[in-house]
């Protein structure tokens, strides 16, 4: 029988319209004594205004170096059931689609071996199973893997790639984000499970510049779908939008960042060569505007949270690449990037930090990409730069 705790502070968070995480912990605590102690420790955190967890350690499943994160209570005497409270990361399916049966299957396993608490999903995109003990890890892995599920990435490894809903339910997808994500995950299983990188590496795949997966802000390699070609305009649908109350001049034309649109009350014109493909007009007038021509993606690299060198957004490395199965050109490019990182990266150095440390030139030359103005917002502001012998030969 799980131990009961008085939780006046947390009970306050069961009130109000938004679904309550406290209610979730209590539901799990009705069955699991681990969840019970989690609740007790959390109430203490609310009282003392501080956390009581400790970092990871040597936990995992045989043969893998990632997928499990050790977590220990710093108050094991007071809350013995969460003395060990490890996280298991399960690799989610592309774009987080599930069937009722697959979810029930997961729940059954997790109720048997863990706290019954989950995150759907962690910020990494994994299914997070929150709270189990070291001895349960092998059984959990056997139950999941025998049913077709594998662990996700953690540590200095490829992290679970994730993507936007893409072609499964979005008319704006320029690439098959789900398939690419699945394909990369399968191709790089070894890189996911057996950490051999200097630090973590994340792919996130968005189908267009709307970037519903926030790829540009949180992936070492951001893959963002785009096109080369015109935006086809359906003037009848434009007229419908105008009729239904949209002010096409102020809401669309005036907000176009490149000022490449014009509207005379009848016809919407786009000077396609000046369009930067930002998606504003298309997102607002989805029935009237459709990208046409060649579909592919822009590859950007380097985003990370503010630590050490300050926050970075991913920046353009390859302005346009076709992405069709089996994605060989892209995979070769990725392998070159990793080779560069393997050769020069220090422990805990993200690939973006390395590119900045060694310079874009060295990186681009190594991976065989030419310099183009699309890679920068503006050229440098000073005349202090390096020359190489080969520059004089040109």
């Amino acid at each position, binding site marked *: 029988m799980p131990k009961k705790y008085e939780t006046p502070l947390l009970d306050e968070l069961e009130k109000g319209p938004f679904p309550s995480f406290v209610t979730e912990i209590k539901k799990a605590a009705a069955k699991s004594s681990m969840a019970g102690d989690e609740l007790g420790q959390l109430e203490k955190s609310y009282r003392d205004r501080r956390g009581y967890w400790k970092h990871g350690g040597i936990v995992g499943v045989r043969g893998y*170096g990632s997928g499990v994160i050790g977590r220990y209570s710093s108050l094991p005497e007071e809350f013995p059931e969460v003395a060990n409270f490890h996280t298991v990361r399960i690799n989610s399916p592309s774009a987080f689609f599930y069937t009722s049966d697959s979810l029930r299957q997961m729940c059954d396993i997790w109720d048997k071996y863990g706290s019954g608490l989950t995150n759907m999903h962690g910020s990494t995109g994994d299914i997070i199973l929150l709270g189990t003990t070291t001895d349960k890890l092998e059984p959990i892995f056997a139950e999941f893997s025998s049913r077709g599920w594998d662990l996700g990435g953690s*540590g200095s490894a490829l992290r679970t790639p994730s993507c936007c809903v893409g072609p499964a339910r979005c008319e704006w997808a320029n690439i098959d984000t789900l398939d690419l994500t699945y394909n990369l995950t399968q191709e790089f299983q070894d890189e996911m499970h057996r950490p051999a990188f200097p630090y973590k590496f994340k792919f996130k795949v968005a189908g267009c510049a709307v970037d519903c997966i926030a790829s540009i802000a949180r992936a070492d390699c951001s893959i963002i779908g785009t096109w080369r070609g015109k935006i086809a305009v359906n003037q009848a649908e434009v007229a419908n939008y105008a009729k239904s109350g949209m002010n096409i001049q102020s809401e669309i034309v005036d907000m176009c960042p490149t000022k490449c649109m014009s509207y005379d009350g009848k016809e919407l014109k786009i000077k396609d060569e000046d369009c930067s493909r930002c998606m504003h007009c298309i997102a607002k007038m989805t029935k009237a505007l459709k990208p046409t021509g060649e579909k592919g993606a822009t590859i950007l690299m380097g985003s990370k949270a503010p630590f050490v060198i300050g926050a970075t957004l991913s920046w353009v490395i390859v302005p346009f690449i076709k992405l069709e199965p089996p994605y060989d050109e892209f995979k070769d490019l990725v392998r070159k990037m990793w080779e560069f990182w393997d050769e020069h990266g220090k422990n805990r150095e993200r690939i973006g930090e390395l590119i900045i440390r060694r310079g874009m030139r060295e990186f681009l030359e190594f991976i065989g990409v030419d310099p183009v103005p699309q890679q920068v917002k503006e050229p440098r502001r000073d005349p202090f730069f390096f020359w190489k012998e080969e520059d004089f030969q040109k």
Partner: protein
Amino acid sequence: MEKEEVKQKIYELVEKSVGKKKLKSSDIQKTVSADAGITRDEVKDALRDLIDEGKLIYTYFGGSFVEIPPKE
């Protein structure tokens, strides 16, 4: 070189650095392939065996490393 021999070399390398420097998988691959004149894939393969057998383990400590498991 026989795989067993590569495994032996890897293990010795890890053993030697205990208490001095934690080794990453890539450190091991670079050092052993250079010393023994074999490819990195061969080292990787041998290392995988050692880990599958539990003779070496991955640890996480602000970065992932390969170490000898602690004695219980």
